[in-house]
């Protein structure tokens, strides 16, 4: 809209409305931040008598905060990495191919995106259970009995990193494939053709030409995959039950459900630790939002 000066009345209603909307958006954060730095925090918003970092120290000393953080980082980092590799190669193939399966595949991944994960959770549980049994069988035959549990912690499908990483990566793969396909569509073939003429192998083309060109696309798909995996609650809730694999969202959820006195300061501190990476990733991903979801799908 062209910039016409506001009349005082318009200006007042403009800033008044924006003030109300901003207040609505920011109020819940006020309690979270106050409580996290207040050693005597409760459920209600109040001015802290004392402000310090003791809640944050306690997250790591009294609770298994570090473990939860590490588990979240391993699972979400692993899933993001996998999405990057798969969507990078897959998106490239989708963009360059003219085969008959291109169109059906692209329609299919849009439809996959709209399936609510809750609708798949029951059969997924059975798939994961079957895979878990198969893997446990293999692990038992190779690894001495004492170590089975600790190995399953990594390669298990239920209560294991591998299963959750694969699952989260798959769920967020369609959007990433779409982003990378669209991205490679906009990358001229000429660079590649020049490299082919110079006799470069696919490996060389990949390293010297495609990877540097693909960086912005990979940044977008990686960030969206990370944000979605990091915020996911349903899959850890369903597929993780042992304490040593607990991730941050489960840590918060279970601390919140505790029957005894809930320690809100501690809870708020965990929540702040959990939220910080999400906000940073979101801030970085912001400039990709419109181009991705204007034509793509919401994450």
């Amino acid at each position, binding site marked *: 809209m062209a910039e016409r000066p506001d009349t005082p009345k318009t200006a007042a209603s403009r800033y008044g409305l924006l003030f109300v909307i901003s207040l609505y958006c*920011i109020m*819940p954060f006020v309690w979270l931040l106050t409580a996290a730095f207040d050693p005597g925090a409760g*459920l209600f918003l109040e001015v802290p008598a004392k402000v310090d970092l003791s809640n944050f120290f306690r997250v790591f000393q009294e609770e298994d905060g570090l473990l939860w953080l590490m588990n979240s980082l391993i699972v979400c980092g692993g899933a993001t990495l996998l999405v990057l590799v*798969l969507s990078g190669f897959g998106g490239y193939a989708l963009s360059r191919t003219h085969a008959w399966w291109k169109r059906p595949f692209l329609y*299919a991944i849009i439809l996959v995106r709209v399936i609510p994960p809750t609708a798949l959770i*029951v059969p997924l549980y059975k798939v994961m259970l079957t895979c878990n049994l198969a893997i446990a069988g293999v692990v038992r035959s190779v690894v001495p009995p004492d170590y089975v549990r600790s190995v399953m912690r990594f390669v298990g499908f239920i209560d294991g990193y591998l299963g959750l990483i694969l699952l989260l990566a798959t769920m967020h793969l369609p959007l990433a494939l779409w982003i990378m396909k669209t991205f490679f569509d906009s990358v001229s073939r000429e660079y590649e053709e020049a490299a082919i003429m110079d006799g470069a192998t696919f490996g060389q083309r990949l390293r010297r030409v495609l990877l540097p060109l693909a960086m912005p696309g990979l940044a977008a798909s990686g960030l969206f995959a990370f944000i979605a995996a990091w915020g996911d609650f*349903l899959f850890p*809730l369903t597929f993780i039950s042992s304490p040593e694999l607990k991730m941050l969202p489960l840590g918060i959820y279970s601390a919140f459900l505790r029957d005894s006195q809930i320690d809100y300061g501690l809870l708020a501190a965990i929540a702040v630790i959990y939220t910080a990476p999400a906000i940073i990733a979101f801030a970085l991903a912001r400039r990709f939002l*419109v181009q991705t979801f204007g034509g793509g799908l919401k994450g």
Partner: protein
Amino acid sequence: MSVSFTRREAWRNRFLILPSVLLLAAFVVYPAGFAVYTSLTNEALSGPAAMNPRFVGFANYAKLLTDQNFWRSLAITFWFVLFSAIIGQLVLGLLSAMLLNRRFALRPLVNAIILMPNAVPEVVAALMWASMLAAGEYGTLNNIVAWFGVDPQRWLTSFPLTMIIIVNIWRGIGFAMILMTSGLSSISDELYEAARMDGANTSQIFRRITLPLLVPTIFLYLLVSTVSTIAIFGLVFALTRGGPAGSTELVGIYIYNQSFNSYQLGYGSAVAVVVLVFSLLVGMLYVRALKVDV
């Protein structure tokens, strides 16, 4: 390029997409098909059916039709989507986008504030709102309404559905605003200038120019937000777990509770299939609306 080169490229492309296809087949397509199969059995995690699930045909679907709780969860989901995504987020997102269409010193800050709820993980959002909506006279919302002379309320007990709608609106304004901002920026200034020359007032300009030209953006937004709002689980589950007395049991939560709390996998799957079919229908609309050029 030689024929053998082209052929090699074609094989390589197939090979590059294969891992993605396998994962999607294993974790999405197969489970979706399996949900249909399970919904035709009386499979359960406990009781006699757990040992020996039987094929029961459409019995689960027949049971659905007469199940009050199922219809209630559909109704709750309908109101939830209608009031939070279609009305609340859209209106407030469009309003914010239009109000922020002018440069002023605090604009980036206001923009960031409106976007922030979007970036917060579901569980954290639930925790923050548990504090906002806490019952008792010291609850934040109770403190706020006290200025207007309203007595303290037990928000999540007395108005559970309204409250989860308010929480979800809060979470989605930013996303709607971003899409609407990009929609608004594609409307040319000259149209507005011309309308003003002709003496149109603000509300006429909004109704006759802005709104009609935003229709494609709004339509796109509605499809995307409908699908993603139906899929909401963690936000509401962590805040109310579907309660009190099932009054916030969105269809996703209903499936979860039926399957993992009542252990009725077959029946839970029948509900899942209904949701699946509906989502796919919206998805097909979406594919058509986008006129996806592939």
